[in-house]
């Protein structure tokens, strides 16, 4: 039995050790070294990169990343909850509706982001249509701003909110909804007093699945934000490419990781209390 358990664990542990923990150690080592003139890292060991992460300039970027990720997560929850509830309570076509939620995954995220840009840019579909209808005289600034970044993130990560919510709501005993109505609760009250509290585990799971990748996003802010809305992910990317400051990039990514761990732990503990 013991051997069997070890045999079952081994492949997963090996993958994690070689492909996750080892690179993480390398990143940690990088973050504690000095930058080389043309990229790369050189001795001596130093903690200077970490000191710079908390420089007001970069602190601002971290703060804004948390803010954008938070707003995007809240919007995903606000949009995803009614959708998940509808699908979970639908009498028919549940499978079809779920597949529609997952349909965007069939196309590359990069291509879908470009598609959004074609829709939103000054000469894009929306602006040119509004212009030709004489609703507006100048193109609306739909792209290359924080709003566009949030739109892109909400669009990209909405399915990650809907799926865990659906899983929780689908298990909800329909008699509880009948009981609430029977005791005089109008539909909205039933949702607020019965469905939402019981869906909390799914809400926490969905929020984590959206918040974490949003916090580290770099493609969406880069393309939809036009480089104007810099998030932590872009900061890291820039250090490893144009800025050639690998130790600093490594330090930023590790700080970001700790931030995510803290948020996750706090949310998990809250969920355990609820259950």
């Amino acid at each position: 039995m013991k051997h069997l358990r070890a045999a079952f664990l081994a492949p997963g542990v090996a993958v994690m050790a070689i492909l996750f923990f080892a690179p993480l150690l390398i990143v940690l080592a990088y973050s504690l070294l000095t930058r080389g003139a043309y990229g790369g890292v050189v001795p001596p060991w130093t903690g200077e990169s970490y000191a710079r992460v908390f420089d007001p300039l970069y602190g601002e970027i971290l703060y804004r990343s948390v803010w954008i990720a938070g707003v995007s997560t809240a919007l995903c929850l606000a949009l995803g909850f009614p959708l998940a509830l509808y699908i979970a309570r639908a009498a028919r076509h549940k499978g079809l509706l779920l597949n529609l939620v997952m349909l965007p995954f069939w196309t590359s995220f990069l291509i879908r982001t470009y598609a959004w840009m074609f829709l939103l840019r000054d000469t894009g579909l929306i602006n040119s249509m509004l212009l030709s209808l004489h609703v507006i005289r100048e193109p609306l600034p739909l792209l290359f701003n924080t709003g566009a970044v949030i739109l892109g993130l909400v669009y990209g990560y909405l399915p990650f909110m809907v799926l865990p919510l659906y899983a929780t709501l689908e298990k909800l005993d329909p008699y509880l909804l009948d009981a609430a109505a029977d005791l005089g609760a109008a539909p909205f009250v039933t949702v607020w007093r019965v469905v939402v509290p019981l869906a909390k585990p799914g809400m926490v799971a969905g929020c984590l699945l959206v918040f974490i990748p949003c916090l580290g996003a770099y493609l969406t802010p880069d393309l939809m934000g036009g480089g104007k809305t810099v998030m932590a992910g872009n900061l890291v990317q820039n250090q490893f490419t144009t800025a050639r400051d690998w130790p600093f990039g490594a330090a930023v990514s590790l700080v970001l990781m700790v931030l995510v761990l803290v948020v996750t732990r706090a949310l998990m503990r809250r969920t355990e209390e609820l259950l």
Partner: protein
Amino acid sequence: MFLRYIVVYEVDKVLELRALTKHYPNHHALKGISFSLTQGEFFSLVGPSGCGKTTTLRLIGGFEEPTSGEITLAGRPVAGLPPYRREVSTVFQNYALFPHLTVAQNVAFGLERRNGVTRSTIRNRVEQALALVQLSGKEARKPNQISGGERQRVALARSLVVEPKVLLLDEPLSALDPKLRKQMRQELKSLQRRVGIAFLFITHDQEEALSLSDRIAVMNQGSIEQIGKPRELYQEPTSRFVAEFLGEVNWVNGAGIRPEAIRVSKENPANGARSVAGVVESSTFLGNVTHLAARLPNGANCTAQLPLNGCTFELGEPVHLWWDASDELRVSA
């Protein structure tokens, strides 16, 4: 005198169903049922599963709308009213207690939905309701921290505290183990007497219906076969279905005889009673009584229920089974 009686009866109807039908695409669940409940009555709907009794309850609760027919509650039609506007409440089969709320919060749920009920009123009424079902002291527990019987009492308190015109109970005892079920049966009956609210009780257990009800409606395949007092239904069933649903019955030459009405003796009693000869085929000791099965000349079986120590017959022994003609059930079909 007679007229006055009629008038009082009419006013007393808290719930009335008239020619109610419910059709689903491939299934006629209800084929026109009518009955009414008077104030404070314990009324049972019994029938095998799939007979339409739960559908009837869901139509009254407002969870589904009838295809045709009318439901009136305290004289007012309730057609089109959603469940949260109907003055009935339901005790669900699985109790449907809110798992995230405490016992007290579950009971308070319906009162909190009412306008103009103050917090202190709610607290008092929850306290009273929990005392009524003997759950004082368990206010802070969650549903998963109490026993099955206690959960059932919470469900009762939660539904009674809103003072419904009629309390609907959907097989509320079926989830309990047999011993607890009998105990809860007594509690349910005495509770109903104390609160004086009309109960519409659904069950497939005839013993439950007979012991609890003021009146019973026996349902079969979407129709009501017969409505009456328990004793009437048991002793004067109008159909074979009702006779067989409410207890065991032997059919001898077209007449129905309950096992407990049959006597067995070695000699033909020759006392004017109806009798039939047979051979003892089996005898089943059940504790307080023994069931003796005899094979009749025509090949049919006939079961007699004999008192303890009343069975002194050997297997294969020829016997006479006899009964009073007045104990025969006269059914039309």
